[in-house]
């Protein structure tokens, strides 16, 4: 189980990172979303796997799942959502300002490095 779950998280991470490195904002947003899945799962696993644990502090419940990482993940999910919303708007703004959705504001050109700013 540990190996499989780790591999799944690794795969999610790799997919997220690959998309993050693409030159278009939309792909980057997809990548960040995938990456956040992986990250949230990883934090959650900080409390270790417990397929049989009880989820709540119900009276008499034993072997509770670790609640602390869950609370952390909840915070992380919400923050990640806010960030995604902002990035979406920023992508549109950048599209409006530069006319492209390329992350660098312009598709790469082949001109040699010249006078940068």
């Amino acid at each position, binding site marked *: *189980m*540990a*190996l*499989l*779950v*780790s591999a*799944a*998280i*690794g*795969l*999610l*991470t*790799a*997919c*997220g*990172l690959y998309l993050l*490195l*693409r*030159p278009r904002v939309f*792909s980057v947003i*997809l990548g960040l979303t*995938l990456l956040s*899945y992986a990250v*949230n799962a*990883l934090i959650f696993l*900080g*409390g*270790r*796997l*417990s*397929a049989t644990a009880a*989820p*709540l*502090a119900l*009276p008499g419940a034993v072997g*509770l*799942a*670790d*609640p*602390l990482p*869950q*609370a952390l*993940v*909840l*915070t992380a*999910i*919400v923050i990640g*959502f*806010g*960030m*995604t*919303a*902002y990035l*979406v*708007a920023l992508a*549109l703004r950048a*599209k*409006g300002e530069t006319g492209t959705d390329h*992350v660098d504001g312009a*598709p790469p050109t082949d001109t040699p490095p010249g006078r940068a700013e």
Partner: protein
Amino acid sequence: MSPHALAALLLAPFLGVPLVLLLQARGRRWAAWGAAGAMAAGLAILAPFVSAVLHGGTVVMRWPWLPEWGMDVALRLDGLGLLFAGLILGIGLLIVLYAAYYLPMNDRLGRFYAMLLAFAGGMLGVALAENMLLLVVFWEITSLSSFLLIAYWSDSREARVAARMALAVTGGGGLALLAGVLLLAHVAGSFELSEVLARGDLVRDHALYPVILVLVLLGAFTKSAQFPFHFWLPNAMAAPTPVSAYLHSATMVKAGVFLLARFYPVLAETDLWLVLVGGTGAVTFVYGAYVALLKNDLKGLLAYSTISHLGLITLLLGLNTPMAAVAAVFHIINHAIFKASLFIAAGIIDHECGTRDMRRLGGLFRFMPWTATLAIVAAGSMAGVPLLNGFLSKEMFFVETINHPAFFGAMGYALPAFATLAGMLSVAYSARFVHEVFFSAATADMPRTPHEPPRWMRLPVDVLVALVLLVGLLPQWTVGPILTAASAAVLQADVPPFKLAIWHGFNMPLAMSAAALVGGLLYYRRRHALFALHARFLPRLASQVAFERAYRIAEFAAMRLMALADRRSLPTYLALFLGFTVVLGAWAWHSATPSSLAGPLPWGETDPVTWVGVALLAIGALGTVLLHRQRLIALVFMSVAGLVVSLAFLRFAAPDLALTQLSVEVVTIVLLLMALRYLPQEAVAESSPALRWRDAALAGLGGLGVAALCFAMLTRPFDTISGYHIAQSVPGGGGANVVNVILVDFRGFDTLGEIAVLAMAALGLHALLDGLRLVPQAGGTRTQDRYPVMLAMLMRPLLPLAIAVSVHIFLRGHNLPGGGFIAGLVIAIALMLQYVAGGIDFAQARLRLDYVRVLGLGLAIAMATGLASWLFGRPFLTSAHGYVSPPIVGSFEIASAMAFDLGVCLVVIGAVMLALTELGLLGCREQAPAQGEG
């Protein structure tokens, strides 16, 4: 006189700075008086110390400031300091007077005098510093004020470039000096000169001695324009002549040789010193003298002459003999006097004739005989003509060359021969100065007809040339005491007996002088051949142009380097970050105590459902990647991955996470879809295969790393504090859902921050989309059946039911999965559906909600809940809970955390709806595609 008066002495010029700036409003005369007053005040404060210092005393004052960092306000006045202070203030006074006449009448003088006084203060500080760091501070102040003064006539491009060049060289040298001083203090164990000067042997024997020496010498040589750092000085002649006279001949350029003299007891008397200091001085001495002759510009000639004389002084100090040091001090005095008077005279000539080009000047003796006479006397001193002060120190130099212990045998003649040669060159350029300016036939193109300058303008020359004669004729009487005192300060030992007399009999030095005089004059007569040679073979690049060109090359190189290093590409930045992290992480693991990746825990059984889940997740994620250019499809794959992740949360006993992930997922999809309307629906493949492989490799490494760390973590047990949360959840937090109690109580502060983030995201989005106009890129027609009737109809009963469910989720959150965040999202989704189904106009008109206010209200409620605990004397966010039992209804629990959760709920609704409506409103101001795409 209290030693603390030294501080007043130092302050006098600095206090003059604001004074002259204020006084200039009342007229330039006032400004001049102010400046003169500051200099005079300095002299007045100095006066009472004179006799004590001349009798070998050293006055030291010390105010501890930052002792831990070696930085104290410590000043000393010894013979050397007294000599310099006198020169600075005395010549300064004369320059103030001269400048008042020299500078054009429309100059209000305040700014000029302010800079001049700041310089004088800095220079005094150098002379008086006891603390070595203080010395560096004042050293750089002189560089800085020199920079400002050279560029005083900033309209001239030459002046501006020269100023920056001077700053580059002298400022850079100052920084080397700083390093040298810091090392020296480290080695000597103190920043105080009194202590450092006494530890010469310690320093000279230290391994760092060569480093210290080189660093200090860099400071000294740059400041004193020693070859090869000399080039800034001739260019500095772009400054107004009073500045040239004061800074660039009499005082500031002497700071370098002052430094050599200052550190003589610590750093000198080694072979390295002899080679570096003596060698540099010798080269500079000859080089300066040689070039001086070639200069057509009067000030240029004087500048190179200054370089040459500074070389001479350096050479003297480098000879490592006590008498040479005495000669050096003596020549410092003499040079300051005659060179200042020559510069002033040159300024007068420039002022009167409108040019400084010696090829255009001539026969001035007729027009201004008195000035000419004075200048000739001063030039004589420069050439080493007997009866003048320059002769005396040059004689002493000749003596030292003959007797030098390091040069014996055949080499014993080399040094005197060299000295004679250099003396000859000095004579030649002095002769050119005198001859071409005052005697040779006047050319017709002098811009103005010259005549004698105003009396007060010439007064400084009068005074200085009088000194030339006085010192030349009565050396013992005039400079004997100060020379002794200053030499003693330099040597930090008894001064060897010397006789200051104008006549030592017929001896070798006199012969050398004579040879130099005669040879120099002969050489001058043959000068035209030399000039022709230079004109033909050495078309020289002006050092100014060279500096500017070098600066531009550096600038361009920097730009190229930056352009190469920084392609302004986000993927590259990300790749760097990722690569950096992977390398750092790998190194961290590798550099730790070796351990296996797998920990002691069993890996656990894998059930088939998990396999299926992982398969679905993998397909979802890989599908997103492989199809990412078909954006809509990628979105579908991604949401499958999201669904599987939430199911996984549920599977592993985290229902709150599953609920949140699910609802967030939905809103995210809608947001992305709304954005996708304005983005290309399909992207082209634009990364090269190589780049894709690089990214894949990096991403793979990152994924592998995360997987490995995750695996290592999962197979290891750990001790956690969360047992406390579980135990305290019901008794302390009043809720059975530990996760929720953590969110709203144990770690409610996180949640407050989290809703602040959400609120800001919405506000930021609101600001970003404000007034934005975009061209839609999505297909589909907007007119055809915009609001499908089944969707519209079914969303109507859904809303009230969804709100009911949301209230249910909200209220149970403290004890069961749920809570304000999920409740808010459910309401937001239901509201959103009204917009989707009925259109923005329909919904907006009927909901009439200002979502910014909803958001603000939510934040306010959450915050107020936290603050309420202050009323009970408890820290922020302390919760209270209890059971109330009204009749009929039965007992139920009320927790203050619920109010907090209500705030969370409202913020979520406000933020999500603000984002969605603003994105929707983009459609109302779309641009037609025809105008689009610039």
